[in-house]
Structures are given as C-alpha cells and as structure tokens.
C-alpha cells in the first residue's frame, strides 16, 4: 500500500465536494425540524432533485437552470408531505417514509432514458493569483459556486434562526405549537413554508449530486445520503454550524476510504465502503448518551400533529 499517493490538499478539496449534497439537505431538514415537523422523506426529495435537476440541465444545457429546477421539484414533492401531515393530520413518520419510497420510484421512472449521458460541465471558479496560491488557493479559492453557496446558506440560516423575528417565530412554533397558536401565530402556514424550504434544499443537494459530484444520472444514486442528512441534524443538535462539522466528517470518511481503496489497503473494499455509515452510527450513539443536553436543544413539539382546538 502506498499512503504517499494520498495528497492532503486533494483530500480536503474532494471531501468538500462530497459533503455539500448532505450539508444542503441537512440544513433544509434542520429548518423543518426547528418548526416542529419531522420529515423523513429527505432521501426521496433528494433523488427527485437529482433527476429533475439532471434532466433540466441536459435539456437546457445550463447547470444553473438544473439546480433551480432541482430545488423547485424538491419543494414540489415536499408539498405532498406537507398537505398530508399539516392539513389531513397524517402521521409524519409514516408519511415521510412513504415520500422516500415514492420519490425513489418516481425518479427511476423519470430518469429512465437519461442514464449514461454526461451533464453540462459546472466548473470551479478561478480567481487570478488567489486560486493559484499553493495549498490555500485550492482549498479556499478553487471550488465551484455551489460549495460557497452551501457555506453562505449555513450562515444565513444561523442568522435567521438566532437573530431575526421570523426565526424566533419559527423556533417558537417548533417549541410549542399550542402556545404559538394562542399568541395568534399561523402554525400551519409557518410549517408549510418550512417544509417547502426543506424540500428545496434537499432537491438542491440532489441536483449537486447528479450534476457535480458524480456527475451522471444513475438509479438510486443518492444511496442513503438523505438518511445521513437526517442523522446529521441530530448530530448537530439542531445548530447550523455543527451541521457543517457533521457533513464534512461524513464526507471526509467517504473520501478517505475511497483514497485508501485506491492506495491498495489490504482490506476488502466492502468493509471500507461501510465506514462512513458506521462512523455516523457511532457518532449518533455517543451523542445520544448525553440525553439531557440533547433534549434541551431538540424542538419540543417535534413530530407532533397540530390540531387547532379553538
């Protein structure tokens, strides 16, 4: 095995690309859960975003339109979940699982004739001088625009949740929908908007996967990324800044095991492929052992159906 073939700089650059889809989806789900809704359909919304974004990009030739359309489609399928759970009072866990299965099926149908096609290229930015700096240039200034967007979005969500009135109302709805309702806030409307935002973020993450990360369309290509995003929300204890750590940790292990496979580590690749998922489980177990702190941060109304009694 030749460990010297693994370059730290390349590793960091590629782990950022590997983490971005999960980060985007996790940020969206974080906002949804902060409003008190548990949407387990992230995987389904992601793959819909992946296929719709891919189709739009291939058809129009513009990756930007692909991202946009992926986000719109993610939000659109999330509305199925939203109407079922918010207006028809369906159980959120069951509906979310249903949404995942529905999304996976619909995506295979839509993407049937798009396998094996290359999408239009989505290139990295290049800033003269800065991007050519050794090490720093590639790590800080050499990514594609979506990576910068995902980082900006993290900051924006943190700012929204902690510094604005809208964010305060959203957290209040997730904390106690009865109290928020008694004060005259529109619980259902706020939750609908949060779910749509979560859907758009998941769709965007999916589109990044099919347009940049892979870049191809393949059936079932999200491969559990939506579930990892859900786990990262818990790992992050509903804090946007920590979602970056969680997503990059997972992305890092993914990229590292690929590199180790390439470097010829004498372990079956099957075991190496498991490591990101195992790492996620271990981290979640460690997090869950500190119940007190977690229950302080978790939205108290998470997953509970709201029914206005007055």
């Amino acid at each position, binding site marked *: 095995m030749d460990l010297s073939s693994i370059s730290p700089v390349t590793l960091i650059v590629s782990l950022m690309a590997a983490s971005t889809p999960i980060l985007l989806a996790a940020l969206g789900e974080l906002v949804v859960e902060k409003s008190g809704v548990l949407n387990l359909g992230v995987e389904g919304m992601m793959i819909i975003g992946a296929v719709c974004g891919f189709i739009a990009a291939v058809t129009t030739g513009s990756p930007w339109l692909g991202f946009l359309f992926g986000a719109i489609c993610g939000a659109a399928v999330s509305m199925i979940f939203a109407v079922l759970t918010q207006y028809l009072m369906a159980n959120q866990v069951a509906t979310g699982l249903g949404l995942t299965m529905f999304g996976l099926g619909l995506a295979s149908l839509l993407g049937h004739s798009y396998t094996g096609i290359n999408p239009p290229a989505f290139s990295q930015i290049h800033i003269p001088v800065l991007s050519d700096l050794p090490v720093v240039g590639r790590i800080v200034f050499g990514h594609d625009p979506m990576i910068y967007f995902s980082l900006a979005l993290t900051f924006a969500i943190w700012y929204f949740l902690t510094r604005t009135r809208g964010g305060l109302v959203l*957290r209040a709805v997730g*904390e106690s929908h009865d*109290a928020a309702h008694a004060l005259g806030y529109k619980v259902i409307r706020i939750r609908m908007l949060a779910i749509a935002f979560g859907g758009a973020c998941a769709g965007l993450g999916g589109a990044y996967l099919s347009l940049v990360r892979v870049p191809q369309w393949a059936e079932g290509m999200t491969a559990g990324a939506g579930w990892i995003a859900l786990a990262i929300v818990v790992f992050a204890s509903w804090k946007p800044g920590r979602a970056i750590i969680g997503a990059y940790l997972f992305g890092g292990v993914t990229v590292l095991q690929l590199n180790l496979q390439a470097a010829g580590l004498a372990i079956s690749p099957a075991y190496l492929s498991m490591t990101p998922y195992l790492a996620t489980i271990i981290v979640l177990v460690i997090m869950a052992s500190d119940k007190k702190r977690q229950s302080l941060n978790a939205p108290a109304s998470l997953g509970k159906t709201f029914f206005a009694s007055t």
Partner: protein
Amino acid sequence: MTPLLHLSGLTKAYPGVVANDNVGFEIAPGEVHALLGENGAGKSTLVKMIYGLVRPDSGEMRLHGQVFAPHEPREARASGVAMVFQHFSLFEALSVAENIALGMDDAPETDALSDEIRSVSKKYGLTLDPDRMVGDLSAGERQRVEIVRCLLQNPKLLVMDEPTSVLTPQEVDVLFETLRRLRDEGTSILYISHKLEEIRTICDNATILRLGKVVGTCVPAEETSRTMAEMMVGTELKSPTKRPYKPGRVLLDVKNLQLPSKDPFGTSLRDVSFSLHAGEVLGVAGVAGNGQDELLLALSGEELTEDAAITLKGIAIGSKGPNHRRLQGLLAAPEERLGHAAAPDMSLTENALLTGHARQRLTNKGFVKWQATENFARAIIQRFDVRTPGASHAAKSLSGGNLQKFVIGREIMQRPDVLVVNQPTWGVDASAAAFIREALLELAEQGAGVLVISQDLDELMEISDTFAVLAEGRLSRVRSASGVTIEEIGLLMGGTEVDHAAA
C-alpha cells in the same frame, strides 16, 4: 361614564354544547371584575371571544362604546386588550426576552427590549431577568413573564385566567399588589377564578356563570365565600365533617428516600423520610415542580429505589414494581388524568382493568375476564357518581371532574391499605372536588393511610390530619395539621423564593 367593555347577548355553540348562552355584562375603567364559575361554565370560551381566538355566533361586544369584533389576537392586542394565560403560552426553551418579543406585535431590538423589561418589572415590583431560560423559572416567575409581556403594551383591559392556581400565598400577595397598582392607574382587569377568597380580596364586582349562562352578579366584598360558591354551583354545598384523628399502627414507612429525576427540568428527591399510620390523612403541600411527581413515582413503584427506603406493613418494597405493591395494598393515583392515570383512547372498562387486574383478579392465566372487569367498572361508575353514558366509552370523552372521580374511585374500590394521590381535585369542579375529598376521608376512617399531595392549601387544611411540605425535593418534618396557619405553610413552600419575591 361609558363602560370600557360592554358585552351583550354573546352566544357561542359547539356541537352538542352551548358554551355561552346570551351572556352580557360590563366593565368600567379601573374596575377589577371577577368572572366566576365552575369548570365548563363557559368562562374560557367567553375570554377567547374577547381575545379574538373564537368568534361568537351572535351578540355584540363594545369597547369604549365602539363595536369590537376582533378576528385574531393581534387585533385584540391592538385595541388594548391583553391576556395572561393559564397555560400554553410560554416557550420553555426560549429566554424571557424572546418569549416576551413573541407576544408583541412590534417588538424592539433585543437589547432595547431587555431594558424595557427591566424597567417595567422594577416599576411593578416583578423581579425578572430577561436573559434567563423560561424552563428554569418557577411558576410564579413564569407568570411574571406573561404579565410583563402584557404590561409592555399598555393595555386598557387585562384579562387574567386563573392566575393564582400555581402560586404560593406570598406570590399571590405580590401579584395582588401589582394588580392594585394597575387598577389605580386606570387599567381594568377581568379576573377569572374559582377561588372565592381571592375574589373577595381583589375584585370590585363579580359576574357568575353557570352552564354558559349568567346566573347572577354580586359585590364580592359583601358576600361570603359560601354564598358565592352556592351561586356558582347552584345547590347547597356540604363541607366534609372532620372526625377526630387517632393514629393507628404504621402502615407505610419511608426512610432516606433518594431519587434522581430523569426529566431535565425535574427535581430530584433528597432524603425524604416519613411514616403514615392507619387512619391518617397526610397532606403534602408544595409548589408544582418541587418533587411531587417524583414522590408519587417512587411510591407507586414506577421508579424503583433501594429496597429498604420504602417499607409497607413491615415489608421492604422499594425495589418492587407497581403490581407487586398493589397486591400488597399500596395504590396510587397520579396527577395527570389523561395519559398517566388513564389511557385516553381506551374505554373505562379497559382502564379499570389496567390498575385493577392484580388486586381484583380480573385475569385468568393471562386471559381477561371481561364480564368481571365490566362489572368492576360499572361498580366504580355507580358508587362514585361518574357521569358517563356507559363503561364502554373512552376515558377522554369524560369531563375532568368525572374522569377524576373514576380514577380515584378505581383505586378506592380496591380497598387499599395505603393510597397515594397527587392533586386529587386539580381542575375539578367544586361539587366533584367535595365528593372526592369526602371519599378520601371515608377511606381513612375505615383504617387506611392516605397520602394527599396537593398544591391547594385550602384542600389540605380541610382534610389533613398531619401535614408536611415538599420543597426542592426535600420533605419537611411532619406536624399536626391543627394549628398550622396558611402563612407558615407558605413560608415553608416558598423556601428561598419568598425573599426573592418580596424584594
């Protein structure tokens, strides 16, 4: 003088029940007006109409002589109506300032708001730190959050829904001081309660509701609590007759009971010791959240402790579960009726089975004896006068008072040696409460030991033979209930909080 608020002919019907039927009264500026009635008399519905949460089917409200028909709370607030809720309006995981900002329509920046909160709380003697998390506050402090939230909007009418149900007597005094100051500044107050002594102390006029209708008005200072209670209930009330107390043998002996709480906002039990004798009613007072729930869990067997910590009739049972304890004669009825004492969606028969199966032999080799169970449920319903169409109806379909009668009855009918009850009459109407107290006294008279955990001091004074206070997870010395004054108990209950509130 035009009244501040004039209500006439207000009617609101829900499927199957007329919550308000042609209700009308008026409130003058600077008046403290009491709205008096039992649970289910329609007080809450009326208040929700004034605050814009519910719209009346017919009738008219006038504020300053103008037609007033708020479509939502925001509109009511804009017109100068503010409301202090009984429950459901604070967010535990948010800070005091955030909670207050949520209740305002044009909240200023956090820093400016914090300053305003400090100045208002100082002006009205309501100590409050804007940066603290509401989940860490006591019930009295939480109420101050609500009051300050209202005061920041300079209301003309302040609506208070059962404001004292969670306060210590000293906290009640502080609250009344604030209310008097507000009244002197010209703010009107609509004060909803079923605590008659308080209404006599603070209110200028009272309107009494029964079954959705106005059944009378009075000047509380000129009435006695008894005459007002009879107007409220519509019949004469009999108060339980206290029998002389002769302690029998020790039935339940608790020694150095420790129990760490599993709830992040809960209270751990520390070194609790007491003995309960045959024929004794031991009252445990304390403000909510001082370990009452934990004490019930430890005694019922839902939380296990060291074997020697709890001894029943000479046998150590601290490490035994609920069914074992039931068979030995220790029964319990927790505070939360729906979800803890009874399963809301299950029928009364099924609920009777849940705690009764061991002692009443309602199962045979794992199979339920439905006929026997139903007879048991029927017997409870009949003896405890539970108003329900039948034993097959779901527990949640019963009113609070009726379900409580069922829950307490279910335990008493099993002839316990020791019965532990937490808040037996919380949120229960006056006649059902009197009935339950009578039943507990009767049980003690037959030789059982009864432990009553309650926040209602009047109730404890009425039925207890002996008395102790639970504060911050510690139980005070048990003393005889005769000769204890409300003030003494209040000081014990408040602990350090008392100095804080008086400051």
